[in-house]
């Protein structure tokens, strides 16, 4: 799935980003550029800071030093700006985080109706189209608790897409799923990638990464250890730490 993104505009830029939890250095001088249409997969051992990294992009986590620029807007404590950026950046969580008291349809239409002022009818139409795209149109009027994990995650993707985001962040989207449900979620993500969505994906699914990613990022101890194309990354990793990690994860 290779495509050329080198001369596309930069969507996300991180310059010397640092974050600490008390004394723990969670992000250590992170520098990254994500271009329009780029599919970036971030991997690394647990606790390496990959989730923290993508969560700083829509400021679910605050960074304490450095610069994060999303679509030309620098992330500052300004609530209004954070708000505008969040509307443009969709996020999918490991635990789905659907709203259990709302139907699938209302989960998807809530934000478009109230934050984008889209008429309810129109928002519902879009929601149904999205549900069809992720293959669970028939679940529209059910509650999240009545769906399987894989179905819930697909609703979560549809919910994020309903805001028509320019960037999608995936924070270990398949880690909480039973093995037979992982594929249905990855299929949806693959389709998104084909559609040209700018994506940052934290995942351990290396087959998916090899197939879909433009860029692989390997993190350890809050640092970016290696960043390269999937071809190089899997066949010829430069760093010893990367090799170790790949050995472990691929031999499993």
């Amino acid at each position: 799935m290779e495509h050329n993104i080198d001369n596309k505009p930069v969507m996300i830029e991180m310059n010397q980003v640092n974050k600490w939890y008390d004394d723990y250095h969670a992000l250590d001088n992170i520098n990254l550029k994500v271009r329009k249409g780029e599919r970036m997969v971030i991997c690394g051992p647990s606790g390496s800071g990959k989730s923290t990294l993508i969560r700083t992009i829509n400021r679910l986590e605050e960074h304490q030093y450095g610069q994060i620029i999303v679509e030309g807007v620098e992330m500052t404590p300004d609530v209004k700006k954070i708000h505008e950026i969040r509307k443009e950046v969709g996020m999918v969580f490991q635990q789905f985080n659907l709203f259990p008291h709302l139907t699938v349809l209302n989960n998807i239409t809530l934000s478009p109706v109230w934050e984008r002022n889209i008429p309810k009818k129109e928002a519902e139409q879009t929601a149904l189209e999205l549900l069809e795209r992720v293959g669970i149109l028939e679940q529209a009027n059910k509650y999240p608790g009545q769906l399987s994990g894989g179905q819930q995650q697909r609703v979560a993707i549809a919910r994020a897409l309903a805001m028509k985001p320019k960037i999608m962040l995936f924070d270990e989207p398949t880690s909480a799923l039973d093995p037979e449900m992982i594929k249905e979620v990855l299929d949806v993500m693959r389709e998104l990638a084909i559609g040209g969505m700018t994506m940052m994906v934290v995942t351990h699914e290396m087959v998916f990464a090899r197939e879909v990613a433009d860029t692989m990022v390997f993190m350890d101890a809050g640092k970016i250890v290696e960043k390269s194309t999937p071809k190089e990354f899997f066949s010829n990793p430069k760093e010893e730490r990367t090799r170790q990690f790949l050995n472990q994860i691929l031999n499993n």
Partner: protein
Amino acid sequence: MKTIVEPYHGDRPPILKSGALNWMKNNLFSPWYNAVLTVVTAALVYILVTPLWRWAVTDACFGTTPDVCKGSHGACWAFIQDMWPVFMVGTYPSDQRWRVALAAGMVLLLIIATLFRALRKKRLLHLLWILSPAVIFILVRGGETFHLQYVPSTQWGGLMLTVFLSLVSMIFAFPLSVLLALGRQSDMPVIRSVSVAYIELVRGVPLISILFMASVVLPLFFPPEMEFSKIMRAMVGITLFFAAYLAENIRGGLQGLARGQYEAADALGLGYWKKMGFIILPQALRIVLPPMVNNFIGILKDTSLVGIIGLIDLLQVAFAATSNPKWLGKIEEAYLFVALFYWIMCYSLSKFSRILEERYQL
């Protein structure tokens, strides 16, 4: 020894022995210590209930004059029958009592209408509910404009006053407590400290002293030409007091919610009030429904403290009625009757909350 169990071929579960006798045998009389417990309990209930039954029913006398009770050892329910209207409305003028009855009847009709599923979604019913407080207020208070005799709030009393005080306090304490709970969780230091200070201050003071303060101190804050009736002051006091307790309960719900719910709402770009209103509060309030109803029951019962600032609520009416020369010393009957009414109201509240819990379970 191993018994052979045949495979089961039916498509329904096998029918077990049932019936009242079987149930009793299984639940009350086996094993032997259960049987002993059953017998002892039954005996105790018999010993305790028989005298009460004899007093309250067998030997009781009914009527409307004190004469029927002369020489009787039983309860004198004639007292209740005679004083019934006073228990209900206190010193409300007797020729105007129909207005209260009318208001109560209207509310009862609304409640019955709401019990019908088909009517529940009707706009008209919602409108009637919204209008009902104003209509009740006009009916009970009266005044020239409505061609009704004006009945000042000093003459309101009895069960009517108890219900007024508790309902109004509940209705106003609830939104205030939501704001306090949100304030306590706020990122803004000023709002947070004000909320914490309010909650901790009010929770640390007994309701009685708040009622005293409300009746003595409150008028000092307002210009003298603004008059607060005693009832108003009591309502303000009770509302402010219970808002602090409710706020702590609601905070529990806010904290009990998974962090992912907050994050998902944030990630979707929902603003603070939309996030709270659509996502967080609906779930948090469901979690804390049982303790909230517990608080409401507390409000209802604690309105009986308003006697201390000179209001004649249901409990005070009982005191007043027993000091009526005609019915001197009918204290047992009065207390039992009042207790029964409090119990009916509290039990209805708790039943209502069970229904809500079942309907809105997550």
